[in-house]
């Protein structure tokens, strides 16, 4: 079983539209994972049936029992996150600021602190319009631990692929270089970068590539909107050659991306044959080299 993860560093490069197209082309032979749990959008194109869903619990929040609290304020002194404030004469925990470290729980002399398990999001397994399965999730607004939810999405996708004898897991990763991306990358066999020829596209590609390099994962790159700035496109290509990153394809600036999205379709189903062909060939090539 191969796990292919699509990432971009920078947002808005077309990563999700392209991943959804690969999922569409892979059909029932792939298991799809939307690891961008912070802003999960792929379900908008895949018509999931939300067949299985459950709450996702991760991390804890301190709650102070006001009956037991003697008002010694020791918890306020030790909290490094300024998460406890005095309201009236008793300390109250701000759910947003609390990191769930449990230091206050450990030091409270009157056992007034309780560490409550936190519901940080919802997790789904769906059948999608391609006939395949998709694992996805929705992180609660302002929640922490998105890395753990990403890990859960990936592990479930892998489990389903193994149990149903599918050879490929295709995952839509999250932007940035922090914990959700690290979780998206762990266990990946091949990384597809989707970039664009802009100063930020190149800058962010280089940063996220340094991370991928640390993990020692093989990778390839798709340059989307390649004709927006041919100078920067060339710069990206020479970077790819220097680092031995496979040049998968170049996709011209095309309004079909938003038009397809507006109709709830992937670009593999929509638009002109030239664009469809590039997507199909990219997918064939990725399957070959991944």
């Amino acid at each position, binding site marked *: 079983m191969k796990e292919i993860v699509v990432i971009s560093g920078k947002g808005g490069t077309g990563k999700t539209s392209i991943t959804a197209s690969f999922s569409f082309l892979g059909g029932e032979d792939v298991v799809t994972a939307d690891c961008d749990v*912070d802003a999960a959008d792929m379900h908008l194109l895949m018509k999931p049936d939300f067949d299985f869903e459950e709450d996702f619990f991760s991390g804890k929040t301190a709650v102070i029992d006001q009956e037991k609290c003697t008002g010694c304020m020791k918890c306020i002194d030790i909290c490094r996150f300024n998460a406890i404030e005095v309201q009236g004469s008793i300390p109250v925990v701000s759910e947003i600021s609390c990191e769930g470290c449990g*230091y206050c729980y450990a030091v409270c002399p009157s056992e007034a602190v309780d560490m409550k398990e936190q519901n940080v999001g919802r997790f789904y397994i769906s059948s999608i319009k391609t006939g395949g399965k998709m694992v996805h999730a929705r992180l609660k607004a302002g929640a922490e631990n998105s890395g753990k939810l990403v890990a859960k999405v990936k592990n479930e996708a892998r489990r389903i692929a193994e149990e149903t004898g599918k050879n490929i897991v295709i995952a839509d990763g999250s*932007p940035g270089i*922090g914990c959700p991306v690290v979780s998206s990358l762990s266990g990946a066999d091949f990384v597809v970068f989707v970039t664009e020829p802009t100063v930020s596209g190149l800058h962010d590609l280089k940063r996220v590539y340094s991370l991928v390099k640390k993990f020692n994962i093989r990778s390839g790159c798709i340059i989307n909107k390649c004709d927006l700035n041919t100078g920067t496109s060339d710069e990206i290509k020479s970077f790819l050659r220097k680092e031995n990153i496979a040049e998968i394809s170049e996709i011209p600036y095309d309004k079909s991306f938003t038009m397809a999205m507006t109709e709830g379709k992937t670009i593999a189903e929509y638009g002109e044959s030239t664009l469809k062909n590039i997507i199909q060939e990219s997918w064939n090539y990725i399957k070959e080299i991944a």
Partner: protein
Amino acid sequence: MKIAIASGKGGTGKTTLSTNFSAYLAEKREVILTDLDVEEPNSGLFISGELITHKDCFRMVPSWNSSKCSLCGKCQDLCNFNAVIKIRDSVMVFPEMCHSCYACSELCPENALPMVKEKIGEYREVKTDHFTLAESRLDIGQEQAVPLISQTLSLVDEGFDSDILRIYDCPPGTSCPVIEATRDADFIILVTEPTPFGLHDLTLAVDAMRFLNRKFGVVVNRYGIGNDDVLEYCEKEDIPVLAKLPDDRKIAELYSRGKLVYREVDSFRKQLDLIYSYLERFMNGEF
């Protein structure tokens, strides 16, 4: 006054708006632009100037002192993040899991886990003709953006007069980094695009802002693509739409070269006028 520029979805134009609006404002008053997207800071690509400050940023993590340790295992029991683990006759610290709460260190009966500095990123300030850009970048391999975002905010708070207008270029999403970046802002501008992805992620960002009880408005970028669902949503939810930045390939090309758009595209500048006049009214306490 602190204005945060955020979005649920990535790539909607936060940095475009932050850099252009800051430069535009700098023609009228003193401004500091702070790039809080520490994982992928981009504002600096559009602003050139003289480097006036550059320093390393650190956070504190425990470090095991084997000669003092009695192997009681209290540290492992205390740590809720599995960052300190006792394995047979040693204690291992996993800094990437650590949240720097100090519990293991301060509650260790033998003082065998002193807190030590770990470098997490770099902070710099660049002075242009009219304004200052402050930005931090997280070191590759560091997973937690929040400590660096919070340090960056403190550095800007300490380093500059509080009368100076602050613009924050925030990270994408709706989870902990954005919450930290928008924590002390007076007003938040959510940048979106008029597409199903844009709308979906905007609703998440709006949920987050309402949950936090914040004042916010929307700027629609690439207006003209997609459909009117975002505008209809804002109207239904009674969310002010401050401006609609036009969709224009010329804008995308200027952006791709790291150029400021408003100086060359008049229709873009006019939309910045609208945002400014809204914020002026906000600052005067009208909303």
